[in-house]
């Protein structure tokens, strides 16, 4: 748990509701804007994509990098964030 950021802990600790996409770990303003342009304006929409990819971390990471231009670190962080959220709430 010490390797995760505060943002990560905040996100996985509760249902995401209508949180913006920037609430996701690894997604800052720049990436958030890129995602919003593509139509992923809420965290739950990105969750939807994650689920569509069958919760496969690698696939999702690749998708995120392609769609938003995220680097590996941020994409992996986001992927992990979603995975843990799903473990608790899905």
């Amino acid at each position, binding site marked *: 748990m010490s390797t995760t950021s505060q943002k990560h802990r905040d996100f996985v600790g509760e249902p995401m509701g209508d949180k913006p996409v920037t609430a996701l770990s690894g997604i800052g303003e720049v990436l958030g804007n890129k995602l919003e342009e593509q139509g992923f304006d809420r965290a739950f929409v990105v969750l939807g994509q994650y689920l569509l*990819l069958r919760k496969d971390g690698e696939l999702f990471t690749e998708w995120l990098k*392609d769609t938003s231009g995220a680097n590996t670190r941020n994409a992996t962080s986001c992927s992990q964030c979603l995975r843990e959220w799903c473990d608790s709430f899905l």
Partner: protein
Amino acid sequence: MATLRSKSDQEIRELLDEYEIKHGPIVDTTRPLYEKKLKEAMAKDKKVTKPSSDKTFYREEQEEVTYVTYRTPVISEVPSGDGKPYMRSRPEYSERDFVDDKLYSRSRPEYSSGRQYVDEPHVYNTPSYSSYSKPMPVVKAGGVVVKEEITESSGKLVPLWIQLLVFLIVAGFLYFIFINMESVESNPFNRIQ
């Protein structure tokens, strides 16, 4: 290979299964990703199957494979008469081109004589057998295989042109040293008298 774009979702799904790529439903947002993965898988597949198909095609040049297997021990003929093997390398080398019919009968003697001077004319052999794109001596018709690989240098490996460049630099450097050695052909033991 038809463009992936024009295939139906079902076809994409089948292709993904063929390449054993784990996937979810094909939707607007997931399709581009899967197309990309398929493209990579196809490119990798093509590269893997190419060399083996060349194997049967270029039988005559099997000779040259044995010649270049550079794991031949360098110990072989170095102390005795560097002059001779070196001089012979030229005619031997051109001779190689004629060998068409008697491949198999000659392969034995050729191989053993090939050992003698494999270490020196490295500079001769390697330019025509730039097999540096593939790590092992998969030299079957090195020229043709390499050409094809140049056109589809994969994204994951070190680009081919960089490898060739490095190789040329190293070869040039060695050649330069070699040239400056002076009278390599003469007996190095002369001075001790």
